[in-house]
Each structure stands twice: as C-alpha cells, then as structure tokens.
C-alpha cells in the first residue's frame, strides 16, 4: 500500500542549516549533509532543502551542496528557494536533486511551470504555496516568503498550476506555521480531494496527533515539518510508530 510520507525540511543559508541543534549522533548539526543523513537513517521518507541564501553569488554553494547530498543520501530529496529559470532547475537536477520546488517565480510567470515540466517531467516539479486565511474566510496566495499578499485564491492558483504541469503541491499555512497547534486541515483536504496530484501539508505540526489528523481529516499525502524534528521535540521513528499503530499506512 502506498504510504503517507514524513518529510523533514532543512533551511539552508550559505551552505549551512539554519535551525540545527545538537544531535548526539552527529558531530555538526549545522552541516546539512550530516543532518540529512541522520534523518534518512531515522526513517524520513523524503527530505526538502529550502535555500534562503540572499545573494546570487552564493548559488554555486547550493549546487555544490546538492551534489554532496546526492552522493550521501539514499532517499529522494527536493531543493527549493530562489529558482527562477529552467537553467536554475537544470543545474540542481544535474547535481542530483530529485525534485525542485518553485514558488514566487512560478506565480509571476506561470509558463515557467510548463517549461520545467516539458523539459524534466512533472514528477520533479513541486509547487510551494504560502497560504493565509483572511477575515473573509478564504485562503489567499502570498509571495516572497509570505511578505507580499496577492488577490489570488489558493484553490484557483493550485488548479491552474496543476493544469500547467506541477506534479506535487507543498502547501504551507502561514496561519499555522510556527504555532505547533496542528496543520490547516480545511485547505489541505480541499486541495487533496479535488486535485490529481499529491499534497504535502506544512505548518503547525506540533505533536503526533497533528500528523494523524492531517493524514485523516486533512487527506494529505505527506506532511512536512522542520523545528519539531530539529529540536528533537518529536523523533521520526516514534512518530512513524505512533501513526502505524493508529492504522496509517507508514513505512517502518
């Protein structure tokens, strides 16, 4: 049976993890390769690396890092952050990334999705959406790491992007991100039940029950979290055992 996926996310700046804390098992939690290898060994199903490096000159650092990760890690991984062109995608895939994620650049130029899908296949195109529920009860798309509001509804943008060729959607609720109060179940299940591509839920996962809820009520195909894994608030093997006991299809 196809399993639900648990995906740790590592934020990368200038080739280093931003939020790494000390793990006894590894010498340097600031080294993304070491931390990624630890998560893979613990049973993470995939990994996401989000580059928040501000400067263009440091992009080469990212492609070198991706190559090191590809040599070391034996599970699939996605790389995102600042991707603006087919050339950016090509460099990352050639260095061994399995998928790339695009966000603002795709919204500003939707044909980018078509170009990437045509050149490399939909299976490697993850659309990241930063979503915020407003007072009117609707979910809106935000850009530039959540700093810029748009008038576009999440459900409309997600549908258009799928029609253009994205193979997966990484949906982050800005209302829930960092709260540890649970994932956004309503918009997650709305997308998961109406779109033909997998939905990765992100933002708000704080305990094991939240993951159970997002896989059941939220109908998510995968769940992503960062700090709760980095700060060892939840250990991946414990989380996966909990979900398996509760009847969720999980790879143990």
């Amino acid at each position, binding site marked *: 049976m196809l399993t639900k996926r648990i995906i740790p996310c590592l934020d990368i700046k200038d080739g280093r993890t931003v939020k790494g804390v000390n793990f006894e098992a590894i010498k340097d939690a600031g080294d993304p390769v070491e931390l990624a290898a630890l998560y893979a060994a613990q049973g993470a199903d995939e990994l996401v690396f989000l580059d928040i490096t501000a400067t263009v000159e440091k992009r080469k650092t990212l492609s070198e890092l991706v190559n090191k990760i590809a040599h070391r890690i034996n599970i699939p991984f996605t790389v995102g952050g600042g991707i603006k062109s087919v050339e950016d995608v090509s460099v990352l895939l050639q260095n061994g990334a*399995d998928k790339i994620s695009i966000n603002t650049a795709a919204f500003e130029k939707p044909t980018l999705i078509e170009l990437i899908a045509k050149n490399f296949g939909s299976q490697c195109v993850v659309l990241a959406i930063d979503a915020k529920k407003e007072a009117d009860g609707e979910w809106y798309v935000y850009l530039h790491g959540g700093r810029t509001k748009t008038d576009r509804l999440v459900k409309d943008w997600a549908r258009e992007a799928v029609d253009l060729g994205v193979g997966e959607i990484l949906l982050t609720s800005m209302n829930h991100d960092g709260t540890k109060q649970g994932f956004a179940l309503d918009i997650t299940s709305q997308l998961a039940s109406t779109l033909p591509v997998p939905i990765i839920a992100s933002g708000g996962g704080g305990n094991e029950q939240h993951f159970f809820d997002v896989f059941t009520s939220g109908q998510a195909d995968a769940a992503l979290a960062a700090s709760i894994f980095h700060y060892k608030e939840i250990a991946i093997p414990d989380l996966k055992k909990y979900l398996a006991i509760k009847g969720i299809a999980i790879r143990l």
Partner: protein
Amino acid sequence: MNIAIVQYNAGNIQSVLYALERIGVSALVTDNVEQIQKADKVIFPGVGEASTAMQYLRERKLDVVLQNLKQPVLGICLGMQLMCAHSEENDTTCLGIFDNEVKYFVPKISSIKVPQMGWNNITQLKTGLFQDIPENSYAYFVHGYYAELSKYTIATTQYIQEYSSALHRDNFYGVQFHPEKSAAIGEQILQNFLNI
C-alpha cells in the same frame, strides 16, 4: 567489475551512479556501443517519456545493442518499461525483451493520484535479485504507467490494481521502483544485481 550505465535522454542517471558509489563500486555512464557490450553488468535507468526515449535509442542503434546483450542487464523505472513490448505512453513500440504491455493507471476514484509517488510494498519476490529482501519491503516509486502481470513477473505491487514491480527473463531484469532512492533495501537490491 565493469559496470556500464546506459546514457540516453532520460533523467536520474547520476543518482544510480552515486548509489553504486555508496555500495563501493564505480561505474561508467556511457552511450558508447562497445563499452556497453563489453561491460560485465549493464544498468538501464531513466525517468522520462517513452516515445522520445525510444526514438533516441533507435537513432543511435542502442535498441538493437540492448536487445542482444548477454550479460546481466537491470532496467530501472522507464528503463524497465522500455524493455517491455509496447507502452500506452504515446503508443510506443518498445524493445520487446519482456512481452508485457505497459498501461496507464486509470484512477477508480478521484482521490487516487496518478502518477503514483512514494513508498509502496514489493511482494511475491522471486530470483536472486531479491536475495535477503523481506516480503513487503518498501521501495520508492514514481510512475504513471505500469507493466501488467505476466510469466516474467518477479515482484508485484498494489496500486489501483496489482501490477509487475519487477520483471525477469534470462539475463534481463527490470524494476519499476528506484533502488537508488529506496534506502538500505534499494542498496541491497543493487548489490544483489551485481552479485548475479
């Protein structure tokens, strides 16, 4: 041991090379006919679309080369599908090493996603390719088309229906999943192939 990874217009080829490096062997990524023919083992990987891949292989006469190899050959994902007789993906005549038809997954309900993406079980494991691999082990899949069950089936997986997640005939092996991305189980399967 001389290992050739067939280079063609498909993705994910480096990942196979890196996975082999992790289990301590080096390989040559090549589209050179002679290098492929004289290799001890040939790996035919790939993520991509069937008709453009077959056209590329035919233009370089690699189709005939692959069909006539006598050493162990392992097709991965699209590589395995191209070793079948025909694919519904753009109505493509393939290499015919396995006489299987490759069909499109038709979801029975709208909540089933196509392509299948993620970890699924491999069962009814046969041949040395799956030596020491427990029944129901998880492997990583990304595919929208599947090979039907046949006498060549050496592993099955359930997604929408039961299908062939691995095939075998003589010296030819094919796996639908990605051993290079399937954690320790995948590395063991690659090692098993090298041991054949």
